C-alpha cells in the first residue's frame, strides 16, 4: 500500500508539471503578452522595456523555468481587472465556496444514484429500473444553465420555497447543488447498476445465500461492497465534471465561487487570474484523483496488499 501510494504521489507531481506546461504554452499561444498589456499606440522602446521587465525577451525555456519558480512560490502576478490584488489570493478566497458547492453536489449525486442503481439491479427491468433510467437521462440531457433557470422559476419565483441566488444558508445551497449533481446521477447510477448486476451474479453471492444470509445483507453488504469499487474509477472524472459544472451554475445562481470569478476574468482578459484558476482547478482535480486512489486501497484488499 505504501509503495502504491508513493508511486501515485509521484505521478501526481508529474501531472501537475504537465499542467503548468500546458497553461504556460496556452498563455503564449494566445498572443504576445506584451501586446495584451500595452496600449495599441505604445512606442517601440516602451514595449522593449516592458518585455525586458517581465522577462519576455528571454528564450521560452528560461521563461518557463522562471514561471515554474513563481508558481512554486505561489506568485501568479497581480490581477489586471482589480489592480493591486494578487491573482492567487482572489482564487483562494473563493475556492472554499466552490468546493462547498461541489461537495454538496457530489453528496446529492451519490445519495440519489446509489439507491436507484442498487434497486435497478435488484429489480431489473422493473418500473423502478425504467423510471430511474428516465430521471437520470433527463439530468444528463438538459444543460446546467437551463435546469438552473427552470428551477429558479419553479422553486424560487412560483413556490417561493428557496432563495433565487447567492450564498448563505442551507437553502441557498440546495438548487445549485442539485443542478450540478443531477448531471452525474445518470452515469453513476448506470455504473452502480451494472456493477451490482455483475456482483449479484457472482459465485460469492451464491455462497452467501447458501450460508443462509438474509437477502438485505447479501445486497447491501456482500454485493455493494464489491460493486462500489467499479464506479470509483468514474469518481475522478466526475470531480472534473463537478468543477466544470460549477462554472455555468455559479453564474446562474450568482454563487460567489471560482466559477463566477473565472467567467469574469475571461471576459476582462485577466490573464493572471485565469492562469491561477486553471492551476488551482488542476490541483483540486489531481488531489481528488489521489484521494480516489487511496479509497481504492481502502475498498479493495487486492490493491491494498499488492
Amino acid at each position, binding site marked *: 500500500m505504501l509503495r502504491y501510494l508513493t508511486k501515485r504521489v509521484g505521478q501526481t507531481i508529474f501531472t501537475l508539471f504537465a499542467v503548468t506546461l500546458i497553461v504556460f504554452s496556452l498563455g503564449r499561444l494566445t498572443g504576445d503578452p506584451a501586446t495584451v498589456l500595452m496600449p495599441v499606440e505604445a512606442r517601440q522602446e516602451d514595449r522593449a522595456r516592458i518585455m525586458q521587465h517581465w522577462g519576455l525577451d528571454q528564450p521560452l525555456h528560461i521563461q518557463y523555468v522562471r514561471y515554474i519558480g513563481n508558481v512554486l512560490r505561489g506568485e501568479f502576478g497581480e490581477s489586471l481587472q482589480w489592480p493591486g490584488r494578487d491573482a492567487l489570493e482572489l482564487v483562494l478566497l473563493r475556492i472554499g465556496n466552490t468546493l462547498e458547492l461541489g461537495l454538496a453536489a457530489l453528496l446529492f449525486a451519490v445519495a440519489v444514484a446509489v439507491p436507484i442503481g442498487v434497486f435497478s439491479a435488484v429489480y431489473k427491468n422493473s418500473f423502478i429500473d425504467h423510471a430511474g433510467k428516465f430521471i437520470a437521462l433527463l439530468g444528463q440531457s438538459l444543460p446546467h444553465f437551463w435546469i438552473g433557470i427552470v428551477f429558479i422559476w419553479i422553486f424560487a419565483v412560483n413556490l417561493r420555497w428557496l432563495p433565487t441566488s447567492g450564498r448563505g444558508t442551507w437553502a441557498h445551497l440546495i438548487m445549485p447543488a442539485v443542478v450540478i449533481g443531477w448531471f452525474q446521477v445518470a452515469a453513476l447510477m448506470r455504473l452502480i447498476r451494472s456493477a451490482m448486476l455483475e456482483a449479484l451474479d457472482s459465485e460469492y453471492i451464491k455462497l452467501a445465500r447458501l*450460508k443462509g444470509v438474509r437477502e438485505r445483507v447479501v445486497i447491501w453488504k456482500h454485493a455493494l*461492497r464489491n460493486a462500489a469499487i467499479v464506479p470509483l474509477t468514474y469518481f475522478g472524472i466526475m470531480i472534473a465534471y463537478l468543477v466544470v459544472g460549477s462554472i455555468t451554475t455559479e453564474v446562474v445562481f450568482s454563487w460567489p465561487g471560482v466559477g463566477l470569478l473565472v467567467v469574469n476574468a475571461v471576459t476582462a482578459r485577466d490573464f493572471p487570474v485565469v492562469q491561477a484558476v486553471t492551476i488551482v482547478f488542476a490541483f483540486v482535480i489531481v488531489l481528488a484523483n489521489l484521494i480516489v486512489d487511496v479509497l481504492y486501497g481502502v475498498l479493495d484488499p487486492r490493491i491494498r496488499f499488492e
Partner: protein
Amino acid sequence: MPTTAAVQPHSRDRDPPAEVILDVKDLRTYLFTKRALVKAVDGVSFYLRRGETLGIVGESGSGKSITALSLLRMEPKPAGRIVAGEVWFQGEDLLRKSPAEMRRIRGRRISMILQDPQTSLNPVFTIGNQLTEAFTTARQGISRARLPQVVVEVLRKVNIADPERRVSTYPHQLSGGMKQRVVGAIAISCSPDIVIADEPTTSLDLTIQAQYLRLIRQLQETSGVGIIFITHDFGIVAKMCDRVAVMYAGKIVEHGPVRAIFNHPSHPYTQALIHSVPKLEERTERLYSIPGQPPAPGEALVGCRFAKRCEFADDRCRQEYPPVFAGRSGHQEHTADCWRLEDPTWRPSLR
C-alpha cells in the same frame, strides 16, 4: 425381495429404507428462457441416507448442478423455476417451505461447496469475517467472545496450517486449494446433516484434488454427514461414493451402488461413460469418446434422451421414454431407464 426386484421393472418411488434423510421425488426444474423452455431437471428422484455419499454423475449441461441448487431452492433466477416435485427432509417437504424457513435450512442443515474456489469467496472480506458470518447467521448461540476461537477451530478441522494467522487474510492471499478448504470450513461450520459438493475439486490441480478428497472423507467419518457429490469424473465416484446416480439431459438414467454400476453398467450411456475413463493398464491408440452431442438446451425431447447417440437404439427408444428396469447387477437398488433391459439376457457392450 432381491430376486423379484431383479426380474420385475420396479420404481424408485417405492418407500426407501428407514435411515433416509433426504428423499427427492420427481423433481422438475425448468428454465423459462426467451428462446426456449429448457427442462433442465426433468423428473428426478433419488434419496440420501445418513452418513452416506451419493454421487451424481453427468456431462456438463446434464442438469446435475441445477438439481443440487433446486434442493435448496436456489435454482438460477429469474429463468429457473421448480415446477413440480417433492424434496423430503426431516419429515418436511422443502418445496413447500417459505423463503424465510428455507434460509434457516441453508448453511445450518444443508450446506454446499461450490465448484470454483477462486470466485466463491467474497474478495473484500477476510476469511475470518466470512466464517464468522456463517456462525452468526445460523444463530448457533455462540457468544461473541468465543467466536474467534470457534472460527480457528473449524479452520483447523479442514487442515489449514496456522489458522490464527489465516483468519485475518483475504481470499486473494490464499492458494486455490486453501480457498476451497475455507469454503469447506464454511460448509461444515454449523454441523449440517447434508453437504452438497458441486464439483469441488474440478478446478484444483491433481495433487491438491487428492488431498481435498481425503479431507472430505475424513470429515465425513468424524461427523457422519451425508454428502451429495456432483462430478463428471467416474474416477472420483469410484473413490468417494457409496451410490451413484447417472444423469443425462435432465434425467437420472441409471442409479445404484457404485460397485454394482461399475461391474454391471446397464444403461448404454453409463457404459460409455465408464468406458471413456482412461485406464493406466491399457495403452490404447485413441481415447474413447461418445459419438454425437448431448441434446441442445430447449431441444424438444421425445423418447429416450440418449437414443440419438446410442448404438442400440430402435424406433421405440426414439418415441417413448423407457420405464425403470432393474439393473444387470441384480442388486435391489440398481435400476436403469433403458428399453433393452426388457430382454433379461441383454448386456450393453461397446466395441
